[in-house]
């Protein structure tokens, strides 16, 4: 998505990204980024949390209007309603799942070989995390 943002900016369309993967977006470099500190999947807030969702829409629009130069990141102070345990959980690798992940990788490579043989030229960036 950061590459799409950059392409639009290069062609005169101002953009704002709203997301929750700070390192990925800042590593690429985008014009305006509103970082929301939530688990991946709900950058505007938890399902059903309409007030947060509307508030973040407004915040993103404000960033779109007020940023004065590239690589402008704003962060919100909102936290995830279920606490912070999710931070340790994402794409976790430890002794409890090491063998499962190895087997998953083997199956995935078989699917990738089959997809390539059938002429598929596209693959998801990351999946199954």
């Amino acid at each position: 998505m950061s590459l799409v943002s950059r392409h639009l900016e290069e062609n005169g369309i101002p953009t704002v990204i709203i997301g929750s993967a700070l390192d990925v977006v800042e590593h690429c470099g985008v014009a305006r980024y509103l970082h929301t500190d939530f688990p991946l999947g709900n950058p505007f807030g938890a399902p059903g949390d309409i007030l947060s969702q509307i508030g973040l829409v407004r915040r993103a629009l404000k960033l779109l209007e007020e940023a004065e130069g590239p690589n402008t990141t704003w962060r919100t102070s909102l936290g995830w309603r279920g606490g912070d345990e999710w931070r340790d959980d994402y794409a976790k690798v430890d002794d409890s799942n090491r063998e499962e992940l190895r087997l998953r990788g083997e199956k995935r490579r078989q699917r990738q070989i089959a997809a390539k043989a059938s002429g598929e030229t596209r693959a998801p960036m990351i999946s199954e995390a």
Partner: protein
Amino acid sequence: MTEKYDVPYMRRTRDFYRAQGYEKDYVWAHHDETPFAPPPKSLRECRLGLITTAMPDTVEGRAKRQVYASMTTPTPHSMYTDELSWHKSVTHTGDLGSFLPLDHLRSTARAGVFESLSGRFYSVPTEYSKRNTAEKDAPGILKLCREDHVDVAMLVPL
């Protein structure tokens, strides 16, 4: 109790794929320079386009990963997000307002914050291939935005 910290997604992803037996680490896009387009006019006069990494929840959208344009009205009941890497063990994508806020944007436009929401919103697939994104999908999204006279864009990766 877990402390707050920025989740290092790039490192987590690298370690996760190494654990699956992949030997070649993904190389994330990186640039030293960042393009910046100032708003061409007041936001109150701008038409906004919304761009998502979710695919349409249709037979085609589920089967084929590509750029799509879908009508913003009526708001779709759902989007296809199964192939994306969001945090499936702690949340869900059943509420579009949490990642594709078409209704919230419409109400914000009605309040006069910006002029209007484009008649279509746009899906762009997340891609392992940066070349596919940069050379095919990004120009495809730009073309759609121009067709719809989009002045400013909001991009929402899951």
